[in-house]
């Protein structure tokens, strides 16, 4: 009496097309170039913001397309990623609540 749950094939059977893979690859390389170029322009404190934003954009592309998260039916995968980032955020932000306020009176 076997029946197959609908979640059985939820890890992506999606097969990447060569075209989309190369497109993402090119975007990643271009972004790397932009990151280097932007570092030589004086944007003040925004330099760091720009660099990390581009890095985050690149990382998102890798996660969504290369790691197939965009194509998976599995809701748990994005939840795991978001949870990890959330707890990392806790570590960084609550630590900075101390380190960033040491000099205050």
């Amino acid at each position, binding site marked *: 009496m076997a029946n197959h749950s609908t979640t059985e094939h939820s890890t992506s059977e999606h097969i990447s097309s060569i075209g989309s893979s190369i497109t993402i690859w090119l975007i990643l390389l271009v972004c790397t170039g932009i990151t280097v170029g932007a570092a030589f322009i004086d944007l003040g404190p925004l330099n760091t913001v720009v660099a990390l934003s581009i890095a985050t954009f690149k990382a998102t592309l890798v996660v969504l397309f290369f790691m197939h998260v965009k194509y998976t039916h599995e809701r*748990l995968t994005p939840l795991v990623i978001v*949870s*990890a980032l959330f*707890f990392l955020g806790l*570590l960084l932000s*609550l*630590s900075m*609540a*101390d380190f960033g*306020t040491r000099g205050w009176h």
Partner: protein
Amino acid sequence: MATAAVVEQGERENYLNATYGLKSWLLTVDHKRIALLYLISITFFFFIGGFFALLIRLELLTPAGDLVQSDTYNKLFTMHGQVMVFFFLIPAVPAVLGNFLIPIMIGAKDLAFPRINLLSWYLYIIGGILMLYTILAGGADTGWTFYTPLSTEFLNTHVITAALAVFTAGFSSILTGLNFIVTTHRMRAPGMTWNRLPLFVWAHYATSLIQVLGTPVLAITIVLVALERLFHLGIFNPALGGDPLLFQHLFWFYSHPAVYIMILPGMGIISEVVCCFSRKRIFGYKAMALALLGIAVVGFLVWAHHMFVAGISLYAALIFSLLTYFVGVPSAVKVFNWTATMYKGSIRYDTPMLYAFGFIGLFTMGGLTGLFLASLGLDVHVTDTYFVVAHFHYVMVGGMVVAYLAGIHFWWPKISGRMYPEGWGKLAALLVFVGFNLTFFPQFVLGYLGMPRRYHAYPPEFQVLNVLSTAGATVLAVGYLLPMVYFLWSLRYGKPAPVNPWGAAGLEWQVPSPPPTFNFDEQPVVTWEAYNYDEIPEPEEVPVGQ
């Protein structure tokens, strides 16, 4: 698939006798056998840690530092802490009871990754060997907390091997947590929805989240301590621009949630025991499950309450103090709900239930005194005194160890196929309760009066309370040794256990005692809610020992 095969002399085939030989145990992938491997190793380390505790209490019988030198005393409390925390408290309930029961409770044949389960045990053993080496080579004396720059710059003791031991044990813990999370998501039998899971499983799920997300931070921190010690970096050294508090932040980011790794599985046990021996559904199932998750998540927000006097900014201290008050709320919810479960229940006072009563009272006291420590003003007065020592022993020993004993007694018939002698069980429970309170209650008073922790000598006016504490420790030791004796006795002379000696709810009480290797002859299909005590008959006879 083995059905109930009858082997010679009418003894049914089960996971214990299915195969023989050392290799069949050391290379097993059966979660139940791995649980027993852990049981033996964890008990061993418990007594090692306990041995150090006894030496500490012996030294503290007299005000003068006359039994050991101060450096040696530093090693005693360090090794006591490290062995107890990393080789007993963290792994005990998940690796022994969690491993054994979770697959059966959810209707699965094994955990999701049986070979990784075995790897976890081997990592634990390697860590344990490294810790034994550290002890035999002379020990570390940093305190279990490895604070820098003491641990990185100023000590000649075996800090790196101790650190490596902890790192390895930590990896074992991460893999166990990973295994449990995947198992709970992917291996449940048909009909075993999340809302029908025993709270024991929910508790281990919440624990596993902490293990997977928190332990890696400890791991990298230990790596940094080792690197700093080896290469004289300066990451935590103020003389080179480093900040010792960075170490403390990274260390406590794990080590505070770690205490919830210790207590949450115990809370899972208590839910099972209280329901069974009140013959009632748990009061507020959803609230209990959410409280477990709430403790796990909020537990990550409070770590700097260990650092109030270390030099963090006042603003950070305020934030962490407020957050620490929040973490008490879900724990309180659980205490209220256990109590409400017992209300108008049909209470039986078997040994597991005695331990459960003890847990609820002692954990509440420990938790309330935690709130004392959360208050900045009070904390300045009692931090680094015996008040803190008493607080954490109330929750870790009065809470977690008591819950562990409750669980071992409760599921012993299932694990071993034998009943333990109930009279001796009750006696041991009483000795543990009395011994525990005699050991640790005086320490609240001592701390409040100002006796600092981690000192081998103290002013004479503290002696009476210290003597009481040591006397209590002796009683407690007897209380711990008794089960060792009668559990071993029961393996040969104990009454053979029926399938469901307690009349308890849960899939584990539907398989034979002890279970067959693959747990179920047919995959169960679950159509009932958890804790369906209105449908389960009372046990025909309440089993008693010889």
